[in-house]
């Protein structure tokens, strides 16, 4: 049985908490446990932050569409934006080398998403980017 929910927000960081709340409602409705819900919310927020900061370069007034789907075996989150093509610049896992001053203050987003979910698919259409992240629930 599939359960699909969708919404959209404007490309502002202050809007992301609305998406979080909407996703939490979806998780509660589908009886996902707190640990899984929290981690998937983190993956969702990191992905949306990246869209706002990189695809839309921090500019408000643009649309981010989100769809959440629960199948018998997976949670599938699909995000669509109409900004710049994904370049993969945001990735930082090297947090243990060097002194205090050399510690990173960001760029963990993609690494976090990869750590949390089982599959990530990206595609570029004529004027939009689609990100599909899938987490097994079996």
């Amino acid at each position, binding site marked *: 049985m599939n359960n699909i929910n969708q919404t959209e927000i404007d490309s*502002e*960081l*202050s809007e*992301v*908490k609305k998406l*979080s709340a909407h996703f939490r409602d979806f998780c509660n409705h589908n009886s996902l446990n*707190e*640990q899984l819900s*929290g*981690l998937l*919310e*983190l993956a969702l*927020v*990191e992905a949306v*932050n990246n869209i706002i*900061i990189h695809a839309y370069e921090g500019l408000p007034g643009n649309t981010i569409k989100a769809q959440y789907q629960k199948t018998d075996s997976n949670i599938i989150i699909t995000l669509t934006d109409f900004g710049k093509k994904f370049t993969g610049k945001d990735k930082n*896992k090297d*947090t*243990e080398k060097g002194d*205090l*001053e050399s*510690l*990173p*203050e*960001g760029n*963990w*987003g993609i*690494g*976090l998403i990869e*750590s*949390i979910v089982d599959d990530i698919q990206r595609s570029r259409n004529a004027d939009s980017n689609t990100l599909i992240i899938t987490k097994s629930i079996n």
Partner: protein
Amino acid sequence: MNLAITENENITVVTVKEARLDASIAPEFKKQMEELINNDKDKIILDISEIGFMDSSSLGALVGVLKAMGNNGKLIVCGASGVVLELFKLTRMDRIFTLADDMQAAKSAFVAEA
């Protein structure tokens, strides 16, 4: 951005009175913390037990705070749990920050160093 600040025996306790710390308020959080540090607060317990969700932008702000303290001060982060604690672990920042389970453990860590 709501922070509750108390002083006790040269230790500054900063409690984040927010259920969510994310990219929309992380810069303000960093700014307020840096103001404290600039006012010679060099022993800080940051109580994040009321935070139920935190993103990596906020963690980055926290790293900035740690850098602002430098090697002369001490920052202990207490009360991280659930997905907030997972964020520290997934980024391996649990190896960089001093994390305490609760306020008592955080204060004990300062006493042990004295």
